[in-house]
């Protein structure tokens, strides 16, 4: 058990260090960053904001991690968010309860995921192309659901999912933490994680070992769609309306970035959901630095890009290798030197 904890810690150490660094940066530009207050039955503070605002990306990256582990990618998650938000809004506007709305949205998301999965696993279309279809078409579908308007609602139950609290903690934080824990537990306590990794590393070998790769690949896209739907409902609930055009716009890229910052290979294989979630938090903390530093907003994307590039350079195989060589050459007795030492007296 202890062993297991150790290996997990070793796996996520780089992400923890980077997160600490970015949080420190936050602290430097805004000394009150770590202050958390309890007012009107709710926790307040910049750190809480990071956790809260990071919820959509965090949710997306849970499913995205699994998809990428199978050597796939899901570009449609942003559009699926819009669809799910629209479905939820339409259902409550039609007078259904928030539970029905949530269920409907989740079903819509799962359906979108299953569609992607069938394109990839059954029809063998390249994942990037297969999910591009829904990325483009998805917002159209969402607009059809909202009939071209921003569909607003006041249903308190649904709104609570986006801006409410449970024992003082904002609901979105609990949702992404909860889902992250559940999915991690499911993939690691069952054999699902290992089989997904096997498919991502070598699908041919996996198939010959009797793994049902088709069903597993459909499943991971389905989970990704489900996560996207949950993120879509939260975003819609937060603004009390479904905006088919802007909900989740470009978030698929943040989700992929979170997975990459989490140290997961885009070539599939070994994955860590916890590391991806840390990646999502790192991205949100970077957003926070930019906001808190009071930079003019036109700098935001450039600075974000610079910080991300720095993070990726640190993680790049070339730099890692250079660091390794540096450490190895600092060794007091590299191999070969013993021989030289023996020969030198003659």
């Amino acid at each position, binding site marked *: 058990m202890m062993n297991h904890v150790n290996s997990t810690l070793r796996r996520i150490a780089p992400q923890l260090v980077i997160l600490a660094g970015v949080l420190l940066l936050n602290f430097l530009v805004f000394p009150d960053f770590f202050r958390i207050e309890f007012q009107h039955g709710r926790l307040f503070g910049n750190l809480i904001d990071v956790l809260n605002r990071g919820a959509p990306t965090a949710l997306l990256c849970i499913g995205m991690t699994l998809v990428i582990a199978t050597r796939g990618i899901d570009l449609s998650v942003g559009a699926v968010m819009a669809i799910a938000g629209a479905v939820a809004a339409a259902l409550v506007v039609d007078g259904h309860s928030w539970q029905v709305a949530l269920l409907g949205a989740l079903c819509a998301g799962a359906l979108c995921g299953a569609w992607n999965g069938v394109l990839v696993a059954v029809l063998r279309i390249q994942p990037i192309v297969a999910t591009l279809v829904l990325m483009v078409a998805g917002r159209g579908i969402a607009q059809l659901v909202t009939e071209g308007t921003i569909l607003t609602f006041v249903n308190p139950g649904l709104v609570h999912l986006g801006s409410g609290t449970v024992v003082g903690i904002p609901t979105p934080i609990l949702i992404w933490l909860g889902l992250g824990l559940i999915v991690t537990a499911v993939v690691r306590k069952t054999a699902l994680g290992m089989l997904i990794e096997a498919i991502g590393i070598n699908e041919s070998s996996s198939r010959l*070992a009797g793994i049902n790769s088709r069903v597993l690949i459909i499943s991971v896209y389905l989970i990704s769609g489900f996560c996207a739907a949950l993120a879509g409902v939260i975003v819609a609930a937060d603004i009390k309306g479904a905006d088919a055009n802007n909900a989740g716009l470009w978030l698929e890229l943040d989700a992929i970035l979170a997975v990459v910052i989490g140290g997961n290979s885009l070539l599939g294989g070994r994955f860590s959901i916890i590391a991806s979630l840390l990646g999502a938090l790192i991205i949100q903390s970077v957003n926070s630095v930019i906001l808190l530093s009071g930079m003019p907003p036109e700098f935001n994307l450039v600075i974000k890009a610079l910080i991300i590039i720095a993070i990726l350079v640190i993680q790049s195989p070339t730099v890692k290798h250079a660091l390794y060589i540096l450490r190895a050459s600092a060794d007091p007795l590299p191999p070969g030197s013993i021989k030289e030492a023996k020969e030198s007296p003659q």
Partner: protein
Amino acid sequence: MASAIGPVLECKGISKFFPGAIALDAVDLTLYPGEVHALLGENGAGKSTLIKCLTGAYRRDAGTIVLENREISPNSTQESQKLGIGTVYQEVNLLPNLSVAENLFLGRQPMKRGLISQRKMHAMASDLLAEFGLVINPAEPLSSYSVAVQQVIAIARAVELSGKVLILDEPTASLDRDEVELVFSVIEKLKARGLAIVFITHFLDQVFEISDRATILRNGRVIGTRRLAETTQTEIITLMLGRQLEARVQDRAPAETGDILVELRNYGRRGVIEPFDLTVRKGEVVGLAGLLGSGRTETANLIFGAIQADQGEALLEGGKISLKNPREAVAHRFALCPEDRKNDGIVGDLSVRENIILALQARQGWFRPLPKAKVNELAEAYVKALDIRLASLDMPIRLLSGGNQQKVLLARWLATNPAFLILDEPTRGIDVGAHAEIIALIERLREDGLALLVASSEMEELVAYSTRVIVLRDRRQMRELKGEEITTANIVSAIADEPMAGAVR
């Protein structure tokens, strides 16, 4: 021919080691000007490694290469090209969208006032190709010509660039008879010009048709060099597949004693393997013999459902079963250790432990994980039973040597408690020690009552452990050998006896 003149290229003691395997073991190769020298051997014998060492694509670990009395040590294919060693590969390495002339003179186009002179280039290309008996329009894109013509163009380019030694790596693999004639006429012309030509192919007829001498490699070693005028196909096949064997054939287990486990009737797939009948009994090892491409691997994959049959039926203990995919085969307690261990066998980044339990876990389904204690017990038991050498069960399997990887794959399938075990080239590319252990394991499993089907290019091996041998050729079952009939001589004659129509593939 030649021996009066000195050799143009002389390789001595070329060795190349890969982690856990000796790819080339002190290989000698001598080429005389004006000779076509065939390089023969089964897959994995070391042909391509030798070529790569010669052309500088690999760094050799030992040995010398002497080209025209000067020792060379090329570091790249460009360097060897400049020195005079040109190579043409099976899949033409040219640019199909450029014109024939551009392909011929890419990087050294004739210039006129700083610009490429198209007219001059086309004239030069026409002249060059005419020397090879090819009259085509050099302005046309390369892709508008047949593969054979492209092959000749590739040869022309290689000869232009190099011109001392020409290595042809399976140049005729995708050509029909007339096209082969075209390429051969070009080879004859180059021979007359005094080039030394290395010809790699699996078509023995073509070897005898065009080559002067042949060097046969097996397991990274030179088994022999023969003047083709003084030898026979049978001798060459024997050299390629091995012999010095009969001594080991002792107390062979009688064939056809146990109950029939698997029966295939008229089973086949168009274009992959001709329909065949096959029965395998409990407690017997059925060997599949044949040259590369004879249908050994295809037979194994078909029975395991990795390739779907389009005709015939499969029976398990008398009842009809479906084998549409490996999952169904595994459910019937079939197991397959594939030929291509790296791409179809191991899951490289997963740990040894995970690789061992993979098939068992896949059969159980993902929602019923094997308990940790059971996993460790299984993994440790098989590591011990099969003597798998490793630092830790947690290390990725790709770091193990070939022999240990093969043992892990065997462990993966033995853990599923199979009734029918199919092994495709179980000893390819593994060291001698592991080799012997795997053969011993096959015997032990047979005694335990498993039904085994073993496809192998190593005839000695097949003779040692098979209770029956089925000889394949041209994707068809040719002959079945039983009991005393199982000798390498009989296998060789079964592979070779027919008058060769087309090629030995």
